Structures are given as C-alpha cells and as structure tokens.
C-alpha cells in the first residue's frame, strides 16, 4: 500500500522536475522535455512484452492458468504503453522533423511492435476454449518476442534514421547532461513503478472476475 503512495509522489516529483529542472532543448524548445515521457513508455512497453513472454513460458511448463492471465495482462499493458510511445514519438517528430509520421526505421519498428501484439489479442479473441486459447497465445507470445530485439535494438542502429540515440555505444557515454540524465532515469523508474502498479490492479480485477465466473458456473 505504502509503496503505491510513494510511487505516486515520486511520479509527481518527476513531472515537476521535467518542467523545472530540464531546460528547453536547442532547436525544439519546450518540446524537448517529451524525452522524459516518451523513452520510459517505450522502455516499459518492451519490459511488458518481455514479462508476457516469461509468463507464457511458465504457462507452457506448468499449465497454470494464472500465468496465462498474467501474460495477457502484461501484453495488454505493453500495448497501451507502446501506443503512448508511438503518440509521444509522433508529437516529437512533428516538432523535430516537421511531420508526425515519415516511416523512419524507428517509427516503422514501433508500429510493427504494435501490430505484433494486436495480432496476439486477435488470436486470443478467435479461440473460445480457455485451455486452447492459453496454449496458442503462449506459443505466439514467445515467437513474437523473438522479433522484438531486432525491431527495438537492431533496426534503428543498422538503418539510417533521424531518431536520436541517447547512448553513444562506441564512446560509452550518455548523450545528455547530468541533470537531464537524472530526471530521465528517475522517469524510467517511475514509469516502471506505474506499470507494476497497473499490472497488480489488473491482475486482482481479473482474479475476481475469474472467481465470479467459476461461482456462476457452480
């Protein structure tokens, strides 16, 4: 309980810091602050998809339906954060590149990530039997995650892109100053906490729904 309030206060502090501590970016002005929201949402989307894969593997090994429920919730939240990352990215692109969407490799890869997990829910919706649905969805979630490293990490580094890199891999340093880095990393922690809280809420709601269904069945 206490950690939920602590995370809420921390998120509020991050939002305030993003306006008070993070200076306007050269060329983008105040729009540059969007980095504090855009990158953490993308990070959380990938984390959520990873968790979906982990729960799917656990389901296939144990047959525990709770794992299937967790995998579906993680995929749902991952899709939500992926949509947020896409929208915030498009807003930033309008300011930086003059247009919301231009099929930049980074934009293309995040769009494909969305398609992957929309297909996951299409598959779940097309199967009525819960056991079969869980198995098929688990197999798909594992296969889908095989493409995620390629889309998120490889494509933007191999193909020429206008998307900035926050980390200079060859020189092993961040491409932002210490204050911005502090607020940025705090935002990553805050959004991760937000994801965990939302996951917990959804899981509890789904467990209650499942219990009601079973009671109705009895």
């Amino acid at each position, binding site marked *: 309980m206490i950690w939920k309030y602590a995370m809420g206060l921390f998120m509020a502090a991050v939002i305030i810091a993003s306006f008070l501590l993070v200076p306007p970016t050269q060329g983008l002005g105040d729009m540059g602050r969007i980095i504090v929201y855009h990158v953490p949402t993308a990070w959380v989307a990938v984390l959520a998809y990873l968790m979906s894969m982990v729960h799917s593997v656990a389901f*296939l090994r144990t047959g525990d339906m709770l794992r299937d429920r967790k995998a579906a919730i993680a995929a749902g939240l991952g899709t939500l954060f992926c949509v947020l990352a896409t929208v915030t990215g498009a807003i930033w692109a309008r300011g930086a590149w003059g247009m919301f969407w231009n099929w930049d490799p980074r934009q293309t890869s995040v769009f*494909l*990530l969305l*398609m*992957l997990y929309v*297909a996951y829910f*299409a*598959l779940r919706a*097309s*199967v009525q039997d819960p056991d*079969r649905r869980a*198995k*098929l969805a*688990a*197999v*798909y979630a*594992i*296969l*889908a995650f*095989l*493409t995620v490293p*390629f*889309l998120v990490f490889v*494509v933007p580094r191999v193909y020429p892109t206008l998307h900035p890199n926050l980390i200079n891999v060859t020189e092993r340093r961040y491409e932002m100053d210490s204050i911005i880095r502090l607020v940025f990393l705090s935002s990553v922690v805050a959004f991760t906490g937000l994801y965990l809280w939302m996951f917990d809420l959804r899981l509890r709601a789904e467990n209650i729904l499942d219990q009601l269904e079973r009671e109705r069945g009895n």
Partner: protein
Amino acid sequence: MQFCSLIKAAWTVFRKDLRCEFRTPLNFSILMIFAVTVLMVVSFAVGGIALDPTLLAALLWVMLFFTAMTGVARAYVQEEETGTALVLRLATDSAAIYIGKVLYSFVLLVGVAIVVVPLYLVLFSVAPAMPLALAATVVLGCLGIAVTGTTFSAIVAQVTAQGSLMTVLSFPVMLPLLWIAISTTSTAFAGSNLVALAPDLAFMFFYSGMTFVASLVLVEYL
C-alpha cells in the same frame, strides 16, 4: 526421439504430403494461379513505367508473401479438415511432423518461385545485375517464409477465422525477414558486390534458423 528416427519420420511426413500433392495438385495449382494473377494485375496496373530497383523488389516480395499466405497455411489446416491430424500426432513426434511440413512448404514455395520470378523479370523487363544473389535471396526468403508460415499454420489450424488470421499473425513476425529480403533483392537488381550482401543473406539464414529452433520446441504444445 533419436535424431536419425526424427529425420526419418520427418522425411516420411514430407513424402506423404508430396505424394498427396501429386495426386491432386490442389495447393500448387492454387498458389501458382494466385501468384500469376497478382503478377498480371500489378504488371497491368504499372504498365510500361520504369520502376526503380527498390520498388521492383518490394512488389516481388509482396507478391511472394501473399502467395505464401494462401498456400503455406494449408500445411496443418488440411490435416484438420481431412480429420487426419490426430492420427498423424499419434503416428509420430510433433517435431518430426513440423520438420516434414516445413520441407513440404519450402519445396512448394520454391516450385512457385521458379515459375513466377522469371515471369516477373520478363514482364517488368528487369535484368538483375546479380542473378545468383537474387536466386539466393529468393531461396532463403522462401525458407524463412516456410519455417514461420508452417508454425503459424499449426496455430491457426486450431482456430475458426483461419484465413485472415494467418496473415495477421505471420506478417509482423516475418517482417524482419521480408525487410532484409527486399533490401537484398533491390541490391541484386541494381548491382553491387556479393561481399556486401553476405551479411544480409547470413541474417536471413540465421533468422530462419532461430525461428525454426524455437518452433521445434514450441510445436510440442500445439
């Protein structure tokens, strides 16, 4: 299952599918007609316009992809339709069935590509600067599509909306492979050196390999 018995069983499944196909060449005919139809429609629509290599490459792979979606889905779906899926699962290991079906899908796709790709080159008046590279790209692309498509065929065979779901599920997972295939084909049309293409061809091979290995493990649960 021991490796030799696995390969033997997979070869038996492949021969079974191939024999069924020769008896009533339904799949191959449908794939061929579909591919030729799409090719004719695109050629008619584009007319005599000279297209750049990237667009030519993209059109070729769009055609091959949708052709594959029509045919590769039937690898497992036809077993469910004919009521032989359970018998097949009782007769041998899931991994052997999967390998046999991948081989069958690959042979089917390469068979279609052997006819359709030269026809494409003729209709669009393309003389590829690197024909060997083009051939390698098409073969590796067909391999990747066969591997991924067969896995998704096993998934969609157990759902109701099979046709549309196959494309919806397959496209995002196949896209990295298609992306590189289009890039490599474009280079093969325009010309470069083979050494420059080697990493892309290697990627296509290893992407197919990675999906194949993952599918071998996962197909047990389907």
